[in-house]
């Protein structure tokens, strides 16, 4: 049967513009173009696009990206996790408690931290699927519980809420550089030597390039985006994620293990938060009880800018990554452009609202609702 004879005269051919519009990444792509155009025009000379500047906003964007990937897959599976920020603080504190206060080897501290945090993620998920309560409420409870422990544990052990000495404790460890190290340092030294990027002119870093490698944080962010995107779009498990969030009951009727999918997504979100935390404490060399505050909302905003629906069942990891990039570029760009940093929050609120309205409109186009 040829295409023409099978065509239904009642189905209007949709324009390529319209079919491009119903891609979830659309908002993110448009946003990226707008944001870069803006800063290239108004902040080009500010140092934002020098090697150091690029590294600056890349690192910030990568941080957002790591938690956005987890939040994205969880949101597509139909749930939220408001405990991400507390989880970041908690995970960082666990590293410090095990690695510094208790003096465990750093690799053991990192592994036990991952185990504890992923277990909390599983508990979040288990409570949500067992009780049928909205994940909003369940993870709001976890937000407070974890934050409480994050303050209580170091207070009890060390009588302070910031524990330092992590970098020293991680010295020579085999696992810590996977989170706190840098790659391609040789390449950047060479780029410095041939003058592509500038080098320090004096001081004890004399002769070294101003950017001396790609932090592992960025490698983790890109790795998580690629793996997340492939799992979501190219595997059966990805189809189950869409199905669990699209209509859990319909998915159950055809045998999709919806509860297991949701619990795994909560665990993955916790994993992402822990990756963020480990990279952060390795960079700062300390863990603070107030780390990660409001990160859960920043992750959700990045995901929504990336085109995911708050109601689940629709979204894209690439979109969420673009949302995180917009987020990072604007936050740091305003700093470079010397704009009052409080305006960043205004920008966030406005762009969130625009993204949600756009997404709702796109949803109507996909489902043909009127």
């Amino acid at each position, binding site marked *: 049967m040829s295409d023409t004879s099978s065509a239904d005269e009642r189905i209007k051919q*949709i324009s390529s513009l319209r079919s491009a519009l119903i891609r979830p990444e659309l908002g993110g792509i448009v946003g990226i173009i707008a944001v870069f155009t803006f800063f290239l025009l108004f902040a080009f000379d500010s140092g934002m696009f020098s090697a150091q500047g690029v590294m600056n906003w890349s690192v910030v964007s990568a941080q957002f990206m790591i938690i956005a990937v987890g939040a994205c897959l969880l949101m597509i599976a139909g749930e939220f996790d408001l405990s991400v920020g507390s989880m970041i603080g908690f995970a960082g504190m666990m590293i410090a408690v095990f690695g510094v206060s208790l003096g465990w080897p750093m690799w053991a501290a990192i592994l036990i931290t991952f185990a504890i945090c992923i277990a909390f993620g599983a508990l979040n998920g288990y409570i949500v699927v067992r009780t049928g309560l909205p994940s909003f409420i369940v993870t709001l409870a976890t937000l407070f519980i974890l934050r409480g422990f994050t303050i209580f544990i170091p207070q009890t052990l060390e009588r302070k809420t910031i524990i330092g000495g992590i970098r020293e404790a991680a010295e020579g460890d085999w696992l810590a550089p996977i989170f706190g190290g840098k790659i391609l340092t040789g390449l950047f030294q060479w780029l410095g030597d041939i003058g592509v990027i500038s080098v320090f002119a004096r001081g004890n870093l004399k002769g070294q390039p101003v950017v001396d490698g790609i932090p592992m944080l960025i490698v983790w962010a890109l790795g998580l985006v690629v793996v997340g995107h492939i799992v979501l779009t190219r595997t059966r498990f*990805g189809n189950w994620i869409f*199905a669990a969030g699209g209509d859990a009951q319909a*998915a159950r*009727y055809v045998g999709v293990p919806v509860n297991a999918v949701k619990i795994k997504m909560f665990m993955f979100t916790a994993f992402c938060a822990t990756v963020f935390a480990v990279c952060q404490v390795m960079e700062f060399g300390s863990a603070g009880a107030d780390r990660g505050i409001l990160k859960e909302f920043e992750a959700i905003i990045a995901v929504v800018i990336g085109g995911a629906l708050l109601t689940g069942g*629709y979204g894209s990891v690439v979109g969420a990554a673009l949302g995180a990039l917009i987020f990072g570029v604007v936050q740091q760009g305003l700093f470079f452009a010397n704009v009052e940093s409080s305006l960043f929050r205004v920008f966030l609120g406005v762009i969130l609202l625009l993204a949600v309205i756009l997404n709702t409109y796109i949803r109507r186009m996909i489902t*043909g609702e009127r």
Partner: protein
Amino acid sequence: MEPIIQMKNIEKHFGSVIALNGVTIDFYPGECHCLLGDNGAGKSTFIKTMSGVHKPTNGEILFEGKPMHFEDPRDSINAGIATVYQDLAMIPLMSVSRNFFMGNEPVKRIAGIPFFDHERANETTMAEMRAMGINLRGPDQAVGTLSGGERQTVAIARAVHFGAKVLILDEPTSALGVRQTANVLSTVDKVRKQGIAVVFITHNVRHAMAVGDRFTVLNRGKTYGTAARGEITPEELQDLMAGGQELATLEGSLGGTV
């Protein structure tokens, strides 16, 4: 002909409520068996018992002559009993092809890693949809753009494709327009001719008469018995469903239009 599934003296109690009080029905392959009854007659409870959602309080289920004990819907799906629910069949935001293979995704291994074989899924979906008379713009068209009747048809095609021997349709036509209803009924007819036992739940006698081979009326958790095609008139069925008398008086004022 051997019945493919026999429901023997099924009772289902929910606490002190007796939803089913000893229902016995045999279903045969290649036949469309209509289950009729007014709201609250126990139709839904009955099919949920068949599809493994509920466990019967008393009674026996024989599938191909062997006693079956379904612990959950997965068991009955594996045995070959598929259920298509009225509005919970499909996920509107997902593409037709993703919906069609939901829970049964074809897999292609690349370097040992199992990937969703979109190519095969898309081809199969398009072919199956054409066979059912639905023209898609493409396999990635969202189910939300299909009409209610088309969604039911996709769900039925999906159940048949994955080897259903018994197909339970829960009020597939109750929310549909005339033309869509006709499409779904003709789909039921196609499926029956493939030798599949169709269990068709409805409270519309005309829809039942259009495709039914046997008719069972449930009322207050009991069956009024089963009649084969030709043994019963639409008027008699209608009377049985409504419990007879009350409808007779109503019908006087409505002029036999119900």
